[in-house]
């Protein structure tokens, strides 16, 4: 594990330096604004540095991971004296858990120094953001591992989060009735993220590099992905309250069917032979 962390940090040294500089810039900016506005009456000094830092660093993570694949670095790392599992864990620790914890610690320390009276609220905001971003990262990592080409990873991520944003409120209503406290929601989010990470780890150690050009790299997940696209799009279209007649109800199936057909085409690459020969 030590070797995996050492090797990956050596390779990605410049990106880590860049991310740190970006972080320092944001910290200076946030602290500067806080000091500048704190004496102005009725001025909100709530800068929410922690979540901002987490988001910025996780965007760097996404770019770095996509870059690793396009530069064939993944391919080479599989041949090195680190296992696939160690590489997966290194990335999760350095690129997901590390930034989330670092951002929270920085935010809490700065709040303790500058606005001690706010510390419990900032702590809660950071924990909530950390749990949510940890979950979002787990979904991205899952997509990153299961989907092959980079542009499909990007499209898959946009689709999944887009559908998530639209379907989210429906699930919140359902979940809200069962899980009635913020703490429980946080626990469910963290456990769901951990489950996705464990599934990602299992896939990462069993995926061979020859599937890199395939839309879905795991055979057993090809149909589930098509079904997921269909169901999530259908949930979005059917959540529209105007679908109360047979015509509008059936029209709600058009977009899900198109999306599922396109996904099916990319995953299974069916070849249609058009010929006049009998």
């Amino acid at each position, binding site marked *: 594990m030590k070797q995996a962390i050492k*090797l990956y940090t050596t*390779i990605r040294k410049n990106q880590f330096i860049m991310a740190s500089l970006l972080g320092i810039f944001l910290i200076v900016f946030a602290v500067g604004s806080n000091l500048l506005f704190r004496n102005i009456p009725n001025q909100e000094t709530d800068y929410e540095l922690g979540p901002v830092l987490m988001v910025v660093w996780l965007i760097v993570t996404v770019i770095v991971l996509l870059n690793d694949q396009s530069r064939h670095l993944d391919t*080479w790392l599989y*041949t*090195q*004296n680190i*296992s696939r599992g*160690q590489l997966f864990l290194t990335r999760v620790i350095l690129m997901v858990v590390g930034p989330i914890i670092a951002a929270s610690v920085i935010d809490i320390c700065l709040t303790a120094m500058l606005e001690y009276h706010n510390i419990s609220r900032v702590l809660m905001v950071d924990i909530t953001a950390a749990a949510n971003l940890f979950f979002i990262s787990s979904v991205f990592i899952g997509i990153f591992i299961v989907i092959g080409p980079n542009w499909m990873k990007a499209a898959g991520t946009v689709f999944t989060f887009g559908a998530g944003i639209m379907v989210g409120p429906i699930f919140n209503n359902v979940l809200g009735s069962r899980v009635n406290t913020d703490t429980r929601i946080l626990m469910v989010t963290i456990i769901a993220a951990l489950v996705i990470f464990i599934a990602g780890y299992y896939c990462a150690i069993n995926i061979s590099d*020859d599937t890199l050009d*395939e839309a879905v790299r795991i055979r057993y997940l090809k149909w589930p992905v098509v079904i997921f696209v269909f169901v999530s799009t259908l949930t979005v279209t059917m959540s529209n309250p105007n679908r109360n007649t047979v015509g509008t109800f059936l029209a709600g199936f058009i977009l899900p069917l198109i999306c599922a057909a396109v996904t099916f085409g990319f995953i299974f690459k069916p070849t249609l032979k058009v010929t006049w020969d009998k």
Partner: protein
Amino acid sequence: MTLVIENISKKIQNKPVLDNVSFELKNGEIVGLVGRNGAGKTTLFGTISGKLLPDFGRVGLDDLDYAKTTWLHDQLFYIDMPENWFRYYSPKKIKSILKVSYENFDESWYDSEIKRFGLNNSKRIRNYSKGMRALFTIIASFASRAQYVLLDEPLDGLDVLIRDQVKQLIVSQVTQHNTTILIASHNLVELDTLVDRILLLKDQTIDRTFTIEDNKTIKKYQLAFVGEELPAFLRDSGTIITQTGHVVTIVFNDFSEELGIKLAGPEFKFVEELPISSEDVFRASFAEEAFAWQQELEVES
């Protein structure tokens, strides 16, 4: 230590590419790997190095399972050619990474070779010419001081002078460090001057292992036949390399005493055995395919 490849099978997109491939590589050997385009040479390299996971079979270092003993992976160097991560970094940065990756990385040798070949240390590899990129990859491979080095078309794109230097590098690497080198190449003439033996990949498996010196069954002849038509048995039992009038150069894949007696018969004005090369063995091994193409061409014309 011996690198053992045992019954490796691998399908890519449900198509068998490797089927029960088995061979061994001993210390200090230079071994060639030849096969037709798309025969599975690069897949085999990928599977040995751990980049690809085999569907069946084992890659081992003596009795150890190579895939499971990741701490031993700095004993083998392989990098995809020509698309690899080297392109995006300078030799200086690559050195810093390889130093972490390979315990015995020879920094001073790396620096001296970079200097000797006049490679720019701070320029990204993608800005090098094709030949220089290939040369750099070989320098990086050998500087790793890995016991096993897999080279995929290492002489491709190199001019004659650099090619000689690279061949010298390969030989000195083996003599000084007892490194084992597996070279995949289509340049059989160059391979003949370098390797101890050649593995021929055909029909998804190692069809034969041969050395030119020890070869007994493959023979090459130049002969002149008497009649108007080429004797039919020649086409059936050999691969015709050239034919000018009545003079034919032919390679027999499985030369037998019976064939020798036929060649000594009255159908031929003269018969002379020629020295054999790897190209001849390659031609003989793919005689059926070459014959089928020849037939197709004759039908078309």
